[in-house]
């Protein structure tokens, strides 16, 4: 027994030697998306945000699970009871990376004011639009005043679009700042060949825990199948997105693994609440009961990279309700036929059109729905449109039904407000014209409370009402699946699809 214990200790000692992280590893990340800018205020896409996080930091940040907000450049914060004034205490001694126009000076409250005002003025996506103004209280204290109470404000601040940038470099480089990014982050950009690759090196003057990675190389490979091949042949160590059909290839290779986590996304069918057959609740219920959602998802994701959805809040969000399935009508084709009969469709089919963009999965789903519902008495036409026409038709509530795909921050606000608040009628998010005053009220309550537990209750209640109204037929949540070489250590995928190599609680390294 004693002997066993000793050998176990010895074994553990050697295991720790083998697994000990070193500070000289290099990682190669393969991404199917191509960054367009390195200027935080200007970015509009995930790929840019992902690479920018190496160089730039925000006041607060999510961990890899995107469940918990952690302090980053702000050490602590307070919010006024009316949720309009947010005061941040900055971490002392944080320095910018050395650049052409400043030599690594300390970050102060003035920089926060400058960065936020810059983002408000020049961001094409109107970032931080809820901010009224920013006040500098002292060297390390800054107050952000909002136009209206807005609980998800901290989540908005985790976005790299709200990163702290040095004024001297921004003004010095002007629109060339994107090519010479300088922030407070753990890595510096050393090379960027557009559409090809990017190289980052460790910032040796970084204020926080030292990153294990000496160098990060991003390779941009637009085709996802080729991306998987690059992982299998050892040209990259991590890939951004694995196609369902490529999962068996990864499983067959002993050097790599597919790592998955529930994503911050939802795909659904949105029904028209203003005109057409779906204004009749019986028709909508027949639609719900006529589709075997488990079967549909199995056909589209045979290797399990998508799961059936039962509500709009995705599993990647902290407000996800594990009991959401209980609000769901269930699959019952006989009941569906009967409902249609009651609605006056005895003998004649319900004719309607489902619009879908050129997304192969959504097109496939529409065709499956078409054939499943044919059996209960629907006659559905599937219209596949190019994105511009698709959004034009659907946002004006000109479609009987359309397939919607939605992905955003993990805060439920972004899945409930933008898709179901009546003020969002006429946008792609609420293109069915959904309007339920009680849901509106719950959303507004959710916006004006900071207590995460309480907010969760409001949004879950809203979700329940939405599901009972039967205008929104959830299809699936896609898992976020990264292909990862087994030499990569300390990595886990994030629900928002961002590959985080260094974040609160994460410091990745690569075994030799």
């Amino acid at each position, binding site marked *: 027994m004693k002997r066993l214990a000793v050998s176990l200790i010895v074994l553990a000692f050697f295991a720790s030697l083998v697994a000990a992280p070193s500070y000289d590893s290099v990682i190669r990340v393969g991404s199917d998306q191509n960054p367009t800018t390195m200027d935080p205020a200007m970015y509009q896409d995930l790929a840019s945000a992902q690479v920018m996080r190496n160089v730039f930091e925000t006041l607060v940040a999510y961990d890899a699970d995107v469940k918990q907000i952690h302090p980053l450049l702000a050490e602590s914060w307070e919010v006024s009871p009316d949720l309009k004034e947010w005061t941040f205490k900055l971490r002392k001694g944080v320095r910018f990376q050395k650049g052409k126009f400043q030599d690594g000076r300390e970050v102060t409250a003035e920089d926060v004011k400058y960065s936020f005002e810059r983002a408000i003025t020049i961001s094409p996506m109107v970032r931080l639009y809820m901010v009224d103004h920013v006040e500098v209280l002292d060297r390390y204290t800054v107050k952000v005043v909002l136009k209206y109470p807005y609980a998800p404000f901290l989540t908005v601040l985790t976005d790299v679009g709200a990163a702290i940038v040095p004024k001297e470099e921004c003004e010095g480089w002007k629109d060339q700042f994107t090519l010479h990014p300088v922030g407070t982050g753990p890595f510096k950009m050393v090379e960027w060949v557009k559409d090809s690759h990017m190289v980052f090196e460790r910032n040796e003057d970084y204020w926080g825990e030292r990153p294990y990675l000496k160098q990060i190389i991003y390779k*941009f*490979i637009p085709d996802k199948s080729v991306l998987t091949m*690059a992982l299998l042949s050892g040209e990259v160590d991590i890939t951004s997105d694995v196609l369902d059909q490529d999962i068996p290839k990864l499983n067959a290779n002993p050097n790599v693994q597919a790592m998955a986590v529930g994503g911050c996304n939802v795909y659904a069918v949105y029904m028209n609440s203003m005109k057409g057959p779906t204004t009749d609740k019986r028709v909508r219920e027949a639609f719900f009961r006529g589709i075997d959602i488990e079967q549909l998802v199995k056909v589209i994701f045979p290797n399990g990279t998508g799961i059936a959805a039962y509500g709009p809040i995705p599993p990647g969000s902290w407000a996800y309700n594990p009991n959401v399935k209980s609000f769901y009508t269930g699959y019952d084709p006989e009941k569906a036929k009967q409902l249609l009969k009651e609605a006056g469709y005895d003998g004649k089919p319900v004719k309607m059109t489902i619009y879908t963009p050129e997304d192969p999965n959504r097109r496939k789903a529409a065709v499956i729905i078409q054939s499943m519902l044919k059996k209960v008495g629907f006659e559905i036409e599937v219209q596949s449109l190019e994105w*511009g026409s698709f*959004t034009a038709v659907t946002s004006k509530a000109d479609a009987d039904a359309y397939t919607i795909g939605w992905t955003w921050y993990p805060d439920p606000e972004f899945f409930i407000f933008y898709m179901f608040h009546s003020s969002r009628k006429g946008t792609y998010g609420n293109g069915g014209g959904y309007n339920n005053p009680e849901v509106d009220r719950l959303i507004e309550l959710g916006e004006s409370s900071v207590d995460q537990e309480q907010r969760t209750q409001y949004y879950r209640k809203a979700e329940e009402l939405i599901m009972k109204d039967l205008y929104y037929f959830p299809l699936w949540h896609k898992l976020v699946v990264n292909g990862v070489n087994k030499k990569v250590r300390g990595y886990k995928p994030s629900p928002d699809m961002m590959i985080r190599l260094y974040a609160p609680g994460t410091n990745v390294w690569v075994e030799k």
Partner: protein
Amino acid sequence: MGKYVAKRIIQLIPTLFFVILTAFLLMKLIPGDPAMILLGPQARAEDIARFRQQLGLDRPLPVQFLIYLKRVLMGDLGISLVYRQSVLSLILERLPVTITLSLCALVIAVSIGIPAGVMAAMKHNSFIDLLVTILALMGLSMPIFWFGMMLIIVFSLELGWLPAVGLGDPTKGLWDVVSHFILPSLALGILSTGTIARFTRSSMLEVLNQDYIRTAYAKGLRRTLILYRHALRNALVPVITVIGLQLGNLLAGAVLTETVFALPGLGKLMVDGIFRRDYMLVQGEVLFTAILYIFVNLAVDIAYAFINPKIRQTYRGV
């Protein structure tokens, strides 16, 4: 000759105008409001209006076109909506990769296609002729996307001989750069190889049936001399036109090749532009590619006139 060239260039003016007009209208005909799409779901009506005004999208169509025409004539293709950089600079950054890829593909196509065609013509109706014809047809009908994938699977994944994707690193030596271009050039070149082989074959056959070849045989000249001196030279004249036109096709085919092999060229820029709905970029690139195509054609015509005096004669004294 000078007169011929001048005339050909003047003929280009209406073509160019038409191309510019088409590029402009194409983008106007695409449904969906670029401002709305680019600003994303959180944009409010006033942001969209401001953005439209910034882009000049709120002005009447003819005014927009005149502004566009003037800009294009001054070499300004506009600012990319996504990159916030001049479209021309984005294009010029990536042009070398596309040109290199297209030329490598052309070299492969010519150096395989012409000998194959000549061989097929000389062994007319033999097994070799049949083989070349079949292979040429396969090359013509093979989708680049699929063929590129197959090349990657065989040569990178299974054999491990060549890198699958991306550009080489010049600091690692010439081989690193060259090796990254081999598979994409093959994938792209295979398309034109078939065309060139078939064309060479028929052109060569036609020449071999001409009287002067028979005369040469009758004079007792050596067979190789007849074939290479007399026949091949004449047979190649029309082939050159085809080669020139192929260059245009290769530039177009580069779109798919660059996507499969992750090469940072014009094609990849175009695909990215379309997926991101960067209207200004796509418009600029369509125009640029069309102009490039027109000038490649012009160069071919001039080269052709240079080789074939008959064409020049038509313009003499006009």
